[in-house]
């Protein structure tokens, strides 16, 4: 067992672990205090919390003046993230199949386009998108920002789905076609079940990026009726009159918990995507 998990028994590992522990310390510290500070009070000038409190979590049951209700904001975020995920999964599972298997004109061109767009820094288009949404009346609406976010993440989704379809053996489809099924039927009943891990990965990834998205809702849908958690939290932090890190962090923990749960349960699916080049 020891030989298997360790590249070599000839070298000692503790200096490496020590070095990595030291450089990781700031991160661990920041995350540890993120959670600790939400349920404790700390005297000014001290680093060690001295009393337990739930007052930082007040925002859950009382809405401060001028701020939208946290549950409305959470609902908006949920609608935003699930809609984006649904659109991306539906559209990219169809388009990915076409690019992987079907003979359509301009297929190579489209695939190249998807690759270029995947690398392309789409956030630079935000000014034009902002003006367009104002012109067509989708500014400050969830639908507008959902469509924009879905479109921006679509190239990655198509690209990943195409990769998953590429691994499905042709024999499955040939058997289906020989048995007289239409190509659509073959896709729907035979191929789609084979790429379930791909759909999971694309879906989870889309959900996480949509849940975390800040700049698009901030620019395209800042209104209090359609606010999402990222915009809510950043407005809270930007408000100089009520500067209270305890509350900020409590909102932050409230906001990050779904992300951590998804990551803990499904990190196996996500690892491939993060390694394959997501933006950031």
């Amino acid at each position, binding site marked *: 067992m020891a030989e298997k998990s360790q590249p070599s028994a000839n070298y000692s590992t503790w200096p490496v672990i020590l070095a990595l522990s030291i450089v990781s310390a700031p991160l661990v510290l920041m995350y540890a205090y993120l959670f600790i500070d939400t349920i404790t009070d700390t005297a000014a000038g001290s680093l060690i919390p001295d009393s337990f409190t739930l007052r930082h979590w007040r925002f859950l049951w009382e809405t401060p003046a001028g701020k939208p209700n946290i549950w409305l904001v959470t609902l908006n975020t949920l609608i935003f993230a699930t809609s984006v995920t649904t659109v991306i999964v539906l559209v990219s599972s169809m388009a990915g199949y076409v690019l992987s298997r079907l003979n359509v004109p301009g297929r190579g061109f489209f695939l190249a386009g998807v690759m270029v767009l995947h690398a392309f820094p*789409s956030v630079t288009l935000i*000014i*034009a998108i902002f*003006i367009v949404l104002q012109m067509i009346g989708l500014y400050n609406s969830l639908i507008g920002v959902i469509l924009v976010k879905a479109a*921006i993440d679509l190239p990655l989704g198509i690209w990943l789905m195409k990769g998953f379809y590429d691994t499905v053996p042709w024999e499955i489809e040939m058997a289906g076609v020989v048995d007289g099924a239409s190509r659509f039927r073959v896709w729907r009943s035979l191929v789609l079940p084979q790429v379930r891990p791909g759909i999971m990965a694309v879906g989870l990834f889309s959900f996480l990026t949509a849940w975390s998205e800040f700049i698009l809702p901030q*620019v395209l849908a800042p209104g209090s009726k359609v606010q999402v958690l990222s915009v809510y939290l950043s407005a809270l932090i930007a408000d100089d009159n009520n500067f209270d890190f305890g509350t900020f962090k409590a909102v932050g923990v409230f906001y990050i918990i779904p992300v951590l749960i998804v990551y803990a349960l499904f990190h196996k699916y996500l690892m491939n995507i993060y390694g394959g080049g997501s933006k950031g």
Partner: protein
Amino acid sequence: MNTSRMLGLVMIAPAAIMILLFFLMPVVLTGVFSMTNMTTATGISGGAYQIAPHSLNDLKSTMPDIAEQMAQPRYAIDEAGMKAVEGLGLDAGIATELRAKHIGDVFQTRREAERMIKGLDQRPSTPDVKKISEQFNRSVVNSRFSSKEELFSALDTLGFKLTDAQKDSVADVTYTGWNWTTENFSRIASSPDMARVLFNTLLYVALVLVLFNTAYAMLLMIWTHYMPSAPATIFRSIWLLPRITPVVIYVLMWKWLAWDTGFISVLMGKFGYPPKNYMLDNAYNAWVFVVLINGFIGASMGMLVFSSALKAIPKSQFFASEVDGASRWQQIRYIILPQMRWPILFVTCYQTLSLLASFNEILLSTRGGPGKATEVWSLAAYHTALNNYAGNLEYGLGAAMALVLVVIGIVLSLGYLRIFNYGTLVSRPLIED
């Protein structure tokens, strides 16, 4: 018509439409908007024509007498005025006579209009004359016209005799909408602020890319390679946290670290240093934090890419080198690093573009400050077009700045397509029907 082609077109249509609407159209429109002087003041739809006091001032230099006339009210006997007179409850004969004799007349001054009213056969009393004349007071100042034609016809009814050239210059100064212009690009090229922003951008991309996305990611890869798999997994998960954490929370944690009541201040306070905002205290510190904040996110991608490249190296090479007595450094130098050329190129290419365009982290942490010390190109475009303290958002100029990034983005990503050998990725379908 074969079925797979038909099915393919139907299935790819949603993706094609979305990409067309939200990628290609914005790319084109960024170009279009960059050629305009759109701002909050001009609005984004077409403008209107408004003879505002400042536009009269503009006119004074070229056509002083016409500007003078426009500033004064005129008295036009028109249908709207007649209705108002009828509503005054005066003797009905006055209105009837006025309509019969004078409808369509225009008087240059109040006095002339009142003289005419006094001269009517019905002989209205002096207070009535004042009331009546008031109904016909027509001024072009501050009235809005939705098109050139409306503006001109209003000027004609009020009896301004203008040549076509004069009309055009009136239309020019009173137009409130946006115009086509190439000024945005000359402003970008000549402004010293822009040069500073360009320098910041290059510095930012270079520092984050070299220090974290490649060098530090490589270090993480090597460190986690030389440790048992359990701690390696833990450390990889820790270093992935910045990437999966929503950016607002992630930057909040850094703010807490650096704020004047935050961790560093309190810690340094124990050694007698006064508390201060370590992030925004001076430009040097701001840069350190901006690079750290982005670097900690960026390191994880390199770490994963390099680690998976490392897994592809046959284990036997490591065993053989150990038997031959190679040190760790020699393993790294002669086995690992030579295999990393492509992964490094991939990470560099990929991250250059995303660093050039992303401004989330800087916006949330320093807002480009202190002063404009950490303002990078994409953030400057955002500040110009979408959010600034002055309140007048210059969409046109912002679009021109974004266009620079769009062009760089297209050129680089097309280039990457060539480097990473796209030709091998498309294979012919095996079922033809």
